[in-house]
């Protein structure tokens, strides 16, 4: 009784994805990938030149980087701690 539900669920996803992938392949969706890279930019042509980083923004970036390193460090430490605590 268990198998039919999730096998159907997983198979439906794969079959659906396979069908759409075949459609995409047949319709040339994987060609001209260079042009595809520029599609979001069509409206941006009017924008001015890029702006430089101000000192405040550099500080902001530093704070963000600090948060990122702290978060990653905490996660890593927690995982190492978990693995060490659970040694068989």
């Amino acid at each position, binding site marked *: 009784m268990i198998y039919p539900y999730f096998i159907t669920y997983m198979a439906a996803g794969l079959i659906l*994805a396979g069908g759409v*992938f075949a459609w*995409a392949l047949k319709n040339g969706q*994987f060609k001209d990938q260079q042009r595809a890279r520029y599609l*979001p930019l069509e409206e941006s042509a009017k924008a001015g*030149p890029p702006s430089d980083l101000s000192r405040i923004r550099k500080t902001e970036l530093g704070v963000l980087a600090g948060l990122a390193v702290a*978060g990653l460090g905490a996660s890593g430490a*927690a995982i190492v701690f978990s693995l060490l605590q659970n040694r068989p």
Partner: protein
Amino acid sequence: MPTPPFEGKGKRPADEIPEPGRYATARGFCLTSAFWMIVAASAGLLGATELIAPDLPGSLAWLSFGRIRPVHINLVLFGFVTPGLLGAAFYYVPRLLRTELFSERLGRLTVLAWNGALVAIVVSLCMGYTQGREYAEPVWPIDVLVVGAFGLIFFNLALTVKNREEPLLYVSIWYVLAAVILTAVTYALGNVIWRPDSGALSGIPDAILLWFYGHNVFGLLLTPLSAGVAYYVIPRACRAPLYSHTLSLLGFWSLLVIYTHIGTHHLLQVPVPTWLKVIAVTDSVAMVIPVMAFLINIWYTARGRLGEIHADIGAKFVFTGTVMYFFVSIQGSMMSLPQVQRVTHFNNWVVGHAHVGVLGFAGMIAIGGLYAVLPKISGRPLFSRFLADLQYWLILIGVTGFTVVLTVAGLIQGNAWLNGETVYRVLGEIHMYYIVRAGLGLMVFSAALIGMYNMARTLFPRKGGAP
């Protein structure tokens, strides 16, 4: 300094002022997101406060934790984040396809139905009507309404794709279409919609099906919608082409193949078939493929252009969301390992993980998407960049704080239980973390109020203001 593309004061070119009625659907979903973020955050804040003071609701059953928690979760998922991402999508899909939305009228109807479902969710859950399955609490009539709304959205977007003038489908289009149709199917299956009386199977099959749903309703809804927004907003803000469209498609298709199978990693302690657990854990680790394909692509597009990212408040939110995505994905893959789960499962670690994912990643990108499209759909500059920045920092500090305190609390709980400690003795140890969590929740609630005000003033300026 030159005026960034989406901000600044003064008149915008006439061709950028949308005619009345255009983008009504995008506008509706944007407002939906901003409004329900307030309600969702207030429910979360109330729930967090009740964890500190369990007697707070007194005899008001409709405010009890068991009812407020599902209200919070369902509103964050369907009230705040999903509509925010859809608001951006209803703007960028027609633009990328160089056509108009198939039907703004149908879109408006969808927004109405969506909000009707949200009201029904709040009322029914507060009254105690629930299916009692995590993330699938709403009762059958609401399930039908939600699936119907997703069906209408897919219909509208699919016919927009059909009417397109641009033959190539940009990766954001792939992501949004996949998210909508997969969620319609996942929601119907996961809520066992063919059994209106219970909304559930029985025994282990129900647990398996529920967790396919429970994971996919986030992974196959919020992740692809967020990726779609990021792939649109970041190249525009950087004024640079996407690093690799081929890599983005690799990420999309691998997400589709891998993500659909990993729900059982929530059930590693349950007697489900071993082969299913192996698939779930293996694919959870394999998620590094779509995740890194996405992140490498976005970060290489933004490489050397962080000045532009910071100049554009929408992109700033979105880019931060991608950093959070990195954290939550690494966490997710690691948490699927049985050895790690022995400590991290069934405690506040998971709650911290969920907040990084839904608020830090998808929520941040949803708000970024709103700020990116607001000036376009309103034809006016954003009312206040300062308020948007304030909102950004409140949410960033809030979600980072959530992560730290909930992770610490989770480790205390997990380690104590693993060593045979009783539950009530641990509660005292984590009390302080709950207090800090509630304080951080207040920051997020404030951020939601600020965001709503900023959006309302942008969309509905006072008479005599800028056009």
